[in-house]
């Protein structure tokens, strides 16, 4: 694949119960040397970015991604299903309408799920 390929790292699982979202963020950081991955959280992975949660082992990954201007998106529909709003999440992530998330996914060349 050429370096211009669009890459999405999709987080699907809740944090702390499994290391999947953490390892997904670590992978976003890792591939950012060659690509501009978009990181997207759906379903319970939305909890990964809850204010006040313990982010000791993954805050650095979020900081890194934002420092190099990479997007971290949260699916609004998933957020609403959990009864959460923008105010419940840290400011480093951006909430996107479900339709926009779908559009991003349909436009990507490769999606890697965590």
């Amino acid at each position, binding site marked *: 694949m050429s370096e211009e390929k669009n890459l999405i790292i999709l987080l699907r699982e*809740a*944090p*702390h*119960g*499994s290391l999947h979202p953490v390892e997904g963020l670590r992978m976003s950081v890792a591939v950012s040397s060659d690509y501009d991955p978009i990181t997207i959280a759906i379903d*319970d992975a939305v*909890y990964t970015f*809850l*204010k*006040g*949660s*313990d982010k000791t082992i993954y805050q650095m990954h979020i900081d890194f991604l934002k420092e190099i201007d990479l997007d971290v998106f949260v699916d609004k529909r998933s957020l609403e*299903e*959990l*009864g*959460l709003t923008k105010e*419940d999440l840290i400011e480093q992530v951006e909430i996107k309408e479900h339709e926009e998330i779908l559009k991003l996914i349909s436009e990507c060349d490769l999606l890697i799920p965590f």
Partner: protein
Amino acid sequence: MGKKALYFITTEKRSGIEMALENTEDEVTICLLQNAVFFANKADKQITKALDQNKTVIALKEDVEIRGLKNLIPDNVKLLDYGEVIDKIFEYDSIINM
């Protein structure tokens, strides 16, 4: 029968909490650990149903706190530390691990 049953739920599989809700005969306590503490989010219909049924709902305090859920959990869900969860385990006649 009215015996004391502890539903000890440690995953996000819905079947665990559903089984607990369907037990309306016994004195049921629902104990949530690990990702199961997400069920205690007040937006979750099943937790509301459990509390409406006057079931006791317990969640492991540390698991609630590391997930940043403290403000999202109804007041009548009791937060216990590891030692208090251990005490609870011995109080019940039966343990339904889910």
